[in-house]
């Protein structure tokens, strides 16, 4: 009787017909050679998650050395190899690839595309990244790089860095960054050519805007760093003198090239987290984003200003004062777009009907850390304050908070939100909330202690600190807090890994999202959509849901059902999500 009020999944009439069923090969070869953007994205996400675990372990290990003054537990050389591995893992092999993976999976679905524009380039980008990480860690078989964030000239020269670890660093980072460049090219072309009919930029979801900003940032900064690494390699191995002051080169030039890249990476982490959180907040407040235009514009502004402000890392270098002041203008101008995004989140939550689910809990935890870390970075944007705090643990604590809040918690929030789309399974919420609590508590205690130690003048990147310099208590508490952070991160990674294969099955639209990825099946078929809908607003999924409801109302139950119902397969499926609240 009641066949219409309970919409069923009708077999869709496919618009794409595969000529023949492809032969199934061995599973891992299939996974590794599959050009589908979702398969590549899954490799990205899995690898990035692995390196987050590596970074968390190395973070705990390096803090173990710094737990008491004058500690001799780990030798200096070993300590710096571990520190180098930690920083490269956290930034190059985790944070950026995580957002690459999320964007690769979600954004083609969000814009209603059947795939990416350059699938093979996309695939190459992953393998360059994977081989780069492998090359980097191959250095640990003999002697790894002992340079914490990156090898700088002239410290990376043969006379100062004797082992081949620096070469492994440069080759590994170079391959990875080349991968980022390939990824960015594919994503830019995809975003410009593969949007569904009606998906104008003004209707594109915020995460898609974030993807566009990130792609352009990586497209601009990656070649610069590649050039710098190549010049450094020439200097180190082939008697070049790009950065050799004795031969008329400039060591500051390499600092410019490197900081240009790392400022871009910082912007990528910030924009990625902000883009994901800007999708999560409206969904769980059951309200549209307060001002889409302001948030989208702000993300673009953060991309531009964040990269241009790179010279705030050179406030202590002998540069022209006009340049320094111009940098200060750009660095302080970042307050406007960052503040606008934060304002929009609160304004969206205001007067909403907030569902305290795990993605929102993780997002709020990330927001707390981001706000405090960014407030600290606002301080060091002012030049005299930077003279005081830069390269002490105080300024480093700000950066760590931004990476933890944006990369780790923002990334976890995004994974929680979208993993049901990727696997069709829910992720355990209790563990996620516990992990969020651990990470936030640990990070805040760590931040406070490291800030106090930095104000006492403790430099960054030391393998030991001295008794009687007044920082012993701070370092002890910070180390314990670091262990709590590491445990929280590993707990949540375990939770995600377990739920990947064992989570409770959920529908195609578990959260009631308003963007197009929730229109696809979970997990989506290789061609993503059977029928690509016409996009008529910024919330296409909401339009589809309303159309389904309107049709239900039109066909009221007592009426007899017409025999031949028009096929609107996608809309039928959309209606069967459990939480059309």
């Amino acid at each position, binding site marked *: 009787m009641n066949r219409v009020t309970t919409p069923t999944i009708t077999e869709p009439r496919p618009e794409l017909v595969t000529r023949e069923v492809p032969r199934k090969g061995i599973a891992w070869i299939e996974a590794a050679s599959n050009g589908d953007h979702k398969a590549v994205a899954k490799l990205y996400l899995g690898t990035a998650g692995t390196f987050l675990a590596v970074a968390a372990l190395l973070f705990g290990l390096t803090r173990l050395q710094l737990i008491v003054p004058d500690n001799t537990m780990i030798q200096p050389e070993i300590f710096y190899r571990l520190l180098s591995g930690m920083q490269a893992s956290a930034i190059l092999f985790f944070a950026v690839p995580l957002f690459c993976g999320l964007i690769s999976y979600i954004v083609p679905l969000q814009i209603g595309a059947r795939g990416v524009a350059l699938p093979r380039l996309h695939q190459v980008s992953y393998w360059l990244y994977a081989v780069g990480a492998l090359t980097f860690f191959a250095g640990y078989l003999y002697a790894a790089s002992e340079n914490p964030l990156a090898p700088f000239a*002239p410290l990376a020269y043969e006379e100062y860095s004797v082992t081949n670890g620096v070469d492994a660093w440069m080759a590994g980072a170079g391959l990875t960054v080349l991968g980022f460049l390939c990824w960015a090219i594919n994503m830019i072309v995809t975003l410009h050519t593969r949007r569904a009919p009606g998906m104008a930029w003004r209707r594109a979801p915020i995460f898609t805007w974030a993807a566009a900003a990130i792609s352009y940032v990586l497209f601009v900064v990656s070649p610069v760093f590649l050039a710098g690494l190549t010049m450094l390699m020439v200097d180190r191995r082939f008697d070049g003198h790009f950065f050799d002051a004795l031969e008329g080169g400039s060591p500051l030039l390499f600092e410019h090239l490197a900081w240009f890249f790392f400022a871009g990476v910082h912007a990528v982490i910030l924009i990625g987290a902000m883009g994901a959180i800007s999708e999560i907040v409206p969904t769980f*407040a*059951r309200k549209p984003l307060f001002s889409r235009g302001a948030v989208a514009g702000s993300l673009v502004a953060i991309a531009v200003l964040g990269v241009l402000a790179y010279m705030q890392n050179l406030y202590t270098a002998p540069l022209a004062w006009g340049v320094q002041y111009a940098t200060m203008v750009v660095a302080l101008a970042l307050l406007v777009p960052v503040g606008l995004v934060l304002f929009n989140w609160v304004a969206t939550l205001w007067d909403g009907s907030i569902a305290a689910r795990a993605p929102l809990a993780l997002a709020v935890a990330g927001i707390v850390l981001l706000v405090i870390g960014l*407030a600290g970075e606002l301080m060091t944007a002012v030049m*005299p304050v930077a003279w005081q705090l830069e390269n002490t643990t105080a300024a480093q604590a700000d950066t760590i908070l931004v990476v933890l809040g944006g990369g780790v918690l923002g990334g976890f929030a995004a994974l929680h939100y979208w993993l049901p789309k990727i696997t069709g399974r829910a992720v355990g919420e209790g563990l996620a909330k516990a992990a969020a609590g651990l990470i936030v508590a640990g990070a805040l205690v760590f931040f406070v202690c490291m800030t106090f130690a930095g104000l006492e003048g403790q430099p960054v990147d030391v393998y030991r600190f001295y008794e009687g310099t007044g920082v012993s208590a701070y370092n002890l508490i910070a180390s314990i807090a670091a262990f709590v952070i590491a445990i929280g991160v590993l707990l949540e990674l375990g939770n995600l890994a377990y739920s990947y294969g064992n989570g409770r099955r959920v529908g195609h639209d578990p959260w009631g999202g308003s963007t197009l990825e929730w229109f696809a099946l979970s997990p989506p078929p290789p061609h993503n959509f059977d029928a690509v809908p016409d996009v008529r607003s910024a919330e296409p999924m909401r339009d589809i849901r309303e159309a389904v409801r309107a049709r239900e109302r039109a066909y009221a139950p007592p009426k007899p059902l017409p025999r031949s119902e028009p096929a609107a397969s996608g809309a039928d499926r959309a209606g069967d999500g459990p939480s059309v609240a």
Partner: protein
Amino acid sequence: MAPALSPSKTRTRVLRRALSTGALALGICAALAAPAVANPIAPDPAHSPNAEDIRVAYWVTLIVAAALAVVFLGALFVALRRFRERRGASPRRVTGGTGITLRVAGALGLVAVALFVVGVLTTESARKLEPSGPDGLTAATARHAQVGVKDVPQPEPGSDEPAEGAPLVINAVGQQWMWRFEYPGEREDIAEVFSYNELVVPVDTAVLLNVRTVDVLHRWFVPALGGQVDAVPGTTTQTWFKADEVGRYPGASTMYSGTGFPAMRIWVRVVEPEEYEQYIEQRANDLTEAQGAVEEQNREAEE
């Protein structure tokens, strides 16, 4: 809000509200009292005019950044508490237009402009070299190009006499993993008077540091006497300080320069001018003696 609550629920709610209000009040009191009482959030006390300028910039930006963070996080948590999910409620789909966006952006922009002005004023003030005071050493010389420091007193053109209040010029040379300090003054037997890791300077005297390196990048930092300055191969960076009190001020290089880098610590010992002159004399004698001993050894080895 639900119209009828059981007594126990009301009590919990009242208790919770009281607790959160109390915590908030406590937090505000702590924040207000912090600059006066709390040592940890204050940098090392300044003992040089440029370090004082840095402290001014620090406190202004700290208050602005903390206020922004508190306002935002407060609003966030109020929103999260007040607007929890209610059954059957469908929130109004309010969105904002250009007007409110421009107003918020304008307010933030004003804060950014204010911070920029504070930044420029304190930077300019910190750069300006303050001439040596009456208690300081006066027989100093300075004649050089200026990179980072402004208003260094210059001698009259064509005159060999040092200018009034001219600074003492000392070279601070970083190397893996120590600092070498080269003092001014010409000597007969030795090239120059130098010391390692501990710099001795007279009180109330402007000291102009030429920060250099012989190998990789280093960074000079003594928190009580001013900000960080890079030592870049091939260039000389300048900074200055004028210590107002006799004492010993610790510092360290803050730029990673290899595995032995934590050992690159600095102590600046500030003494009375007479004691400084004695120190230089003593040091010159010691160095001459050491050089003589080496020459003696060489002669013995030759024979």
